[in-house]
């Protein structure tokens, strides 16, 4: 895999089918679905529980806004991910082109996915810092690899945005 800046876009070239599949899973992974832990993390409380009125109003007025914001980010990246519907050879490497105008949406969606996965699997600080752990084995290990891979992409996007500003 190779990532580089190409005009007004970031290009991820030579994406092997495994990593391409992980990228295709970003929008799905960003949804809390049946995980109360993920829902709680993505829509965390704005104040201590004693501030009952504030927390109640937040749920009514702010959470729907946040939900729309997050949904908008995942929809944007879903459109970009359509490029990964490889029409050629089934196991060929692909290229993903992320327009610079979509980088905020990517950062947000990748973050949603990382937080939702980490909350669902309740990864410890130690696990999250252990970058040498083998991704093979359980679904949990694969999810940890997913969190780290998405984090790597976030780092790259941030670096490019910083260079651009």
């Amino acid at each position, binding site marked *: 895999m190779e990532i580089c800046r190409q005009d007004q876009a970031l290009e991820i070239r030579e994406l092997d089918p495994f990593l391409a599949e992980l990228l295709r899973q970003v929008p799905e992974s960003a949804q809390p679905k049946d995980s109360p832990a993920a829902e709680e993390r*993505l*829509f*965390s*409380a*704005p*104040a*201590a529980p004693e*501030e009952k009125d*504030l927390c109640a109003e937040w749920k009514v007025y*702010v959470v729907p*806004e*946040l939900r729309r*914001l997050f949904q908008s980010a995942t929809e944007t990246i879903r459109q970009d991910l359509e490029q990964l519907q490889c029409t050629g050879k089934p196991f060929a490497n692909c290229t993903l082109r992320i327009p610079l105008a979509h980088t905020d949406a990517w*950062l*947000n969606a990748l*973050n*949603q996915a*990382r*937080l939702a996965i*980490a909350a669902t699997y309740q*990864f410890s*600080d130690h696990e*999250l*810092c252990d970058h040498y752990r083998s991704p093979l084995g359980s679904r949990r290990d694969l999810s940890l690899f997913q*969190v780290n891979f998405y*984090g790597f992409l*976030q*780092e790259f996007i*941030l*670096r490019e*945005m*910083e260079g651009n500003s």
Partner: protein
Amino acid sequence: MGWLRWKEEAKFATTMVIDFPDAALEAPTIEKKEATSQEIEIPWNVVVHNDPVNLMSYVTMVFQRVFGYPRERAEKHMLEVHRNGRSILWSGVRERGELYVQQLHGYLLLATIEKTV
């Protein structure tokens, strides 16, 4: 006037009384001033809490964007969050603090608003 002193005075005195030391010369003038709810409102802190998932570089970028802090100040707060578990990013009136917390939640940071007490 420091916040704490201001707060204490606002709490117990919604009227301001001005009396002169030499009251024998003429009757003291008493002026009353109604304090608005904004005046007596205590300041709130916007606090960001540690989160092992969010990247340090991402958190720094968010602080720069939301609060307009220069990179050095944003990094200082990010490291404070990382090392101490939390950092106070801003203090002031509640409405603005709530807006900041909403923005921070939009970036998926763990942020809360709390009274300065």
